[in-house]
């Protein structure tokens, strides 16, 4: 399996945020996206997840399973928001996502108890999600990556609000995923402690490209 991005560019509102970004990731490889505030890291990840239309360029998965329309169907996306309901318990949240997402071909998700243990918070799955602290919430959102199997993980500042211990724990999870032949793309301001990573530095795109309301 190989994730191939060629000449991607994307707009927010009317302005080009980045232009002509290409990379290729084989199974077991990770890409870390870095850059200053506002340089377009989150935007790039949303394009990869199929949540924003790329302005130009293409995103392909080679040697993937057949009958798949977009790589996003094989991806997990962990954005700034955790996609968990405050009113439901952690267990209810996780088992909903496990059922709703199902597993991608070629793997199977772990069960709830294992996943919660893997993020280091065993025994509090019965609490409503809203009762957890910021860092605990983030860890539970990571447990979501484990309950449904997806070969590609797209992570936006996964370790913000995590303490040092959780950082290491997270690095362990990601490395295990890579060892199983997964692909990881992560945006971050902090070092993540991953092996076998490429780095993509976003610098922001100061020019206009398509400022259609102005004269050229």
């Amino acid at each position, binding site marked *: 399996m190989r994730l191939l991005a060629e000449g991607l560019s994307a*707009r927010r*509102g*009317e*302005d080009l945020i980045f232009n002509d970004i290409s990379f290729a990731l084989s199974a077991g490889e990770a890409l870390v996206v870095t850059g200053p*505030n506002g340089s377009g890291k989150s935007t790039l990840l949303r394009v990869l997840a199929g949540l924003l239309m790329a302005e130009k360029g293409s995103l392909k998965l080679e040697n993937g399973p057949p009958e798949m329309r977009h790589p996003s169907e094989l991806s997990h996306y962990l954005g700034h928001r955790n996609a968990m309901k405050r009113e439901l318990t952690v267990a209810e949240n996780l088992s909903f996502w496990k059922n709703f997402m199902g597993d991608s071909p070629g793997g199977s998700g772990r069960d709830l108890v294992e996943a919660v243990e893997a993020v280091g918070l065993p025994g509090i799955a019965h609490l409503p999600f809203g009762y957890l602290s910021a860092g605990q919430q983030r860890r539970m959102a990571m447990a979501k990556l484990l309950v449904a199997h997806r070969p590609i993980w797209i992570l936006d500042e996964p370790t913000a609000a995590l303490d040092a211990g959780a950082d290491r724990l997270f690095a362990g999870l990601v490395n295990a995923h890579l060892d199983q032949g997964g692909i990881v793309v992560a945006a971050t301001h902090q070092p993540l402690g991953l092996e076998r990573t490429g780095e993509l530095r976003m610098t*922001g795109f*100061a020019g*206009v490209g398509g*400022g259609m309301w*102005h004269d050229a």
Partner: protein
Amino acid sequence: MSENSLAIRKFSDLANPTRFLALADRVLPWFAALTALFFVLGLWLSFTTEGDYQQGETVRIMYVHVPAAWLSMMCYSVMALAAIGTLVWRHPLADVSSRAAAPIGACFTFLALVTGSLWGKPMWGAWWVWDARLTSVFVLFLMYLGLMALNRAIDDPARSSRVSAVLVLVGFVNIPIIKFSVEWWNTLHQPASVLRLDGPTIDPEFLRPLVVMAIAFTLLFFTLHIAAMRNEIWRRRVTSLRRLAARSAGREV
């Protein structure tokens, strides 16, 4: 084939915002002057022609009411055309045109409603009845206001354009309902006597000021529309410059 694509290119050349601004600067004074001229003429005509033996002085309301009503429908049709432009060709100026037209159309519809009510009180004895024609015009008014509210609520035009284009097209069913409501349902309202397939049946004495006023209103619409489109383009320039400023600020720190 090549001729066709050339025509399209020409069209989109003209529809380039910068060119549009230049064009607007050139034609606006002329339009404004013509509009004023026709209004003077129309007002003079409408106050000098005789009153109707049946309706008395109130017939003069017609010279405002009918053009305003026509324009309210025409403005929506312009918006519907622009909506097709947005959806099919994705041309940015189409969205500008549709946005700029909404407040103008709302004003004309408001005028048709108010003058109609003012006419209805002496003629029918009620300010308002819930018959098909009046109700559908009121719905048109609400639709204009709703579109304006929607346009204001989503401040990113790239996202709101297609949504509001679809809504405009959905709402277009209302226009034939307005036009033919007097024929499909029996209502208190006058049936068409000018815009008919078999020619106008109205007395030329009333037709003359009516036509002049209608032309004046149409010119007014185009003048305001062009000016409002120009404003909208400027607004978008301001917006995109501001985003640019936000993006480049603090870069060097």
